[in-house]
């Protein structure tokens, strides 16, 4: 369909397609800036609100429920009572992470709006570094997290399938994921907020 449209313009008007696309893009950006410009602070409020949810919604559950139970399991992996508790907190956490996973798309939506409406460019070093962190670190982590928490890796779903080996694999895989991703999540979450607020360079 897109190829057909491009061919139509090229053949009918003999216009350079790249210039046409850039022109359309400029029109769209100007429209967004003119329409949403007066509401920049409101968009920023929504963005920050969801950033707060995204950063902190899992903290209490992870630190005070998941971590102590999983540590107890690692110290005594053959204890069935600990494994039962472990499985329960893991499934509850899968469910509770919904807050974070609703907040993240809202951040991805409002972030570019702030970028366009605010007129920020890569000349702002803080902005570039923030984008690099979000796109290169948080996006891949969140994609994995969505899968492990809600889709193929969802523990309740694996349990209902009746495959104990797959369930155990799922729990262990998710725990390894938490161990590996918790340091960058904590470190770069702080850094992203620092960059956005302080704008150091």
């Amino acid at each position, binding site marked *: 369909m897109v190829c057909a449209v491009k061919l139509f313009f090229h053949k009918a008007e003999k216009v350079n397609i790249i210039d046409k696309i850039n022109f359309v893009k400029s029109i769209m950006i100007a429209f967004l800036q003119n329409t949403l410009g007066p509401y920049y602070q409101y968009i920023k409020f929504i963005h920050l609100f969801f950033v707060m949810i995204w950063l902190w919604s899992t903290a209490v559950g992870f630190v005070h429920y998941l971590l102590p139970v999983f540590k*107890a399991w*690692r*110290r005594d*992996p053959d204890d069935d009572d600990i494994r039962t508790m472990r499985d329960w907190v893991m499934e509850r956490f899968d469910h509770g992470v919904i807050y974070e996973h609703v907040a993240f798309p809202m951040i991805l939506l409002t972030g570019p709006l702030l970028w366009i409406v605010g007129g920020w460019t890569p000349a702002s*070093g803080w902005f*570039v570094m923030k984008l690099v962190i979000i796109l290169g670190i948080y996006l891949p982590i969140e994609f994995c997290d969505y899968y492990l928490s809600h889709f193929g890796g969802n523990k309740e779903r694996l349990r209902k399938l009746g495959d104990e080996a797959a369930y155990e694999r799922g729990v262990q895989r998710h725990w390894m994921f*938490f161990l590996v991703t918790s340091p960058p999540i904590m470190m770069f979450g702080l850094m992203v907020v620092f960059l956005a607020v302080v704008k150091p360079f």
Partner: protein
Amino acid sequence: MKQEFPGNPRLYLRIAVFTSIFFGIWIYGGTALIQYLWNGSTTLLDWKPALGAVLFMAWYARYAYRWMMRGDAQWGSGSGWVLKERKVKLPELRS
């Protein structure tokens, strides 16, 4: 079904070092490259930011390794906790 968890100190050390190098190159290198290509800025290519990036990578590797070791109970005895046997009912969502 009992399966052995694959986490061990050697693996965590490798992960910490690898991720530290990757993050350092990605964040520092990516930012410096984009700024250079966009407006010819070489601010980040000065020795101070580069040194800061290297020091950060070293610190981050240590921080990540220590976090994974503690998080996976490879360190610590858990003496701050006591396991109490209880009879509980665990709520689950209806399907």
